[in-house]
């Protein structure tokens, strides 16, 4: 009797997860199918389930210099943002772990606030000062404003990875006469490489997917892929091939990266307060 009951629970669990998986995958699969259909077959009614797949839409996107540029712009903006945030955050996280700091709580609260502030708050003030500084519509400008989100996130993540290192290692470093810089470089850095990779990936996903700030602070030269994808949204005549293909191109790298960072995603989503 007890066994049947147990199985009943398990079966309902599998049914629920099947429904959830189906709901998750259907829109993505449908979009992917449309992106490899030829123009004539895209919207036949009833829909064609069996068709000759074609990569024409993707070839067209590759030949579309405007879209191709946004793809590479996003790669550069993402890389610069990651390097900047992880480097700066590593020192901050080390200081927070190793030393007694006045205003520590205030600093942590500031991080949380900066992380939470609405995107459009930054756009107009930055627009004004970027014009003056000459970094409007540049990779650097974008990478700097993105720090408001990715830097607090990186400090949290790296701090929680550093906290996991046993105290003995700390003490050993000091006895060996390591200065703080040496300690970071020689001892901590190698130990938290997995943490750094996870932080970098999660930061990268956020930067890659960001739209609101990018709309306000880029015009042409630094437009990221989200703006590129958005350029295919139209009301009068929609380029369905471009729309479906560009969305798939923007989705796939992030899903692959996320698979690498799987183990640390929960930690990331909860800002380091829960281990994955």
């Amino acid at each position, binding site marked *: 009797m007890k066994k049947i009951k147990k199985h009943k629970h398990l079966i309902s*669990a599998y049914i629920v997860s099947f429904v959830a998986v189906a709901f998750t995958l259907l829109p993505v699969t449908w979009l992917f199918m*449309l992106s490899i259909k030829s123009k004539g077959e895209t919207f036949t009614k009833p829909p064609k389930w069996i068709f000759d797949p074609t990569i024409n839409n993707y070839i067209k996107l590759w030949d579309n210099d405007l879209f191709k540029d946004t793809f590479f712009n996003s790669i550069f903006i993402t890389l610069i943002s990651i390097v900047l945030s992880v480097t700066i955050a590593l020192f*901050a996280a080390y200081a927070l772990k190793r030393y007694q700091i006045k205003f520590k709580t205030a600093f942590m609260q500031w*991080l949380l*606030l900066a992380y939470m502030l609405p995107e459009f708050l930054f756009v107009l003030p930055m627009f004004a000062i970027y014009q003056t500084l000459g970094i409007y519509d540049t990779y650097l400008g974008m990478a700097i404003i993105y720090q408001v989100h990715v830097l607090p996130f990186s400090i949290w993540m790296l701090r929680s990875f550093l906290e996991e290192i046993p105290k003995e290692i700390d003490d050993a470093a000091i006895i060996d006469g390591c200065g703080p810089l040496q300690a970071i470089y020689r001892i901590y850095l190698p130990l938290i490489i997995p943490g750094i990779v996870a932080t970098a990936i999660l930061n990268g996903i956020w930067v890659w997917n960001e*739209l*609101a700030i990018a709309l306000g602070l880029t015009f042409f030269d630094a437009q990221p892929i989200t703006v590129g994808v958005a350029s295919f949204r139209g009301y009068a005549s929609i380029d*369905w091939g471009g729309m479906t293909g560009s969305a798939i191109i923007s989705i796939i790298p*992030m899903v692959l990266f996320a698979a690498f960072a799987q183990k640390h995603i929960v930690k990331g989503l909860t800002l380091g307060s829960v281990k994955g």
Partner: protein
Amino acid sequence: MKHTPYFFLLPSILILSFTSLYPICYSIYYSFFNWRWGDEKDFIGLGNYLTLLTDKEFWIIIKNTFVFAFFACFFEIVIGVFLAIYIDRIKIGSTIIRTILLIPLMVSGISVTMLFKVMLDNMFGIIPYFLSFVNIKSNFFGSYTAAMPTIIGLDVWWQTSFVFIIILAGLKSIPHEPIEAAKMDGASEWEITRYIRLPMIRSLLLLVLIFRSIDTLKVFDIVWGTTGGGPGLATEALQTYAYRVAYSFLEMSKSMTVMVLFSIVVIFLTVLYSRLNKDL
């Protein structure tokens, strides 16, 4: 030596001052001016605040934003917790299920709009096509009544796994002993969930609630990418409104006033979270 830690914190403090304090101060300062792009900036005191707070349109937008946030949060948390409770029982295949359910979180908001525009398009979409069999003429993004629920649905598809994945991790970390003990006493599965599992993860439930409410109040991508706030004002939210005011109407100071008011709400929720979190 004494100053070493502050030296290490300095780059973070400088960058965060430039990217967070400066925009706040700038926005507050210019919210007291009448500034249209290209014109002179005239000091008008609280003028912008008074115009906005007495503007019926602005209150509709506030209402929209909160309606969106409330229902999106509600469904995301209910469905996410429900999924986590069920999937927590699964041993075989749970990694693959979790990996698949995480996919929506990795998709950018603008791509989410593309996914659903393709499926829900009045002329070509697959769902209106199926609905036409049962004589329902659907207009998901274009009608006053359907646009808001549709946008909420998009957000639920997109962000439910945020709740799911955190709650699942929480459930997995609960020690076995109290649950085994309750089972011995003959507690049903539902009772164990209600009286043991959920209370034990209440700090995570709070985290999910606050993070999701702030995030849904900030909605931008999925509104801008689909309805653009329309039809009429049916789906206009605070951030899309601030964008429109600045980039279509060029009323810079009015847009910044909207963001100042909105930021106060976000700051309030964030401070509330850090206070409550300590108590739990």
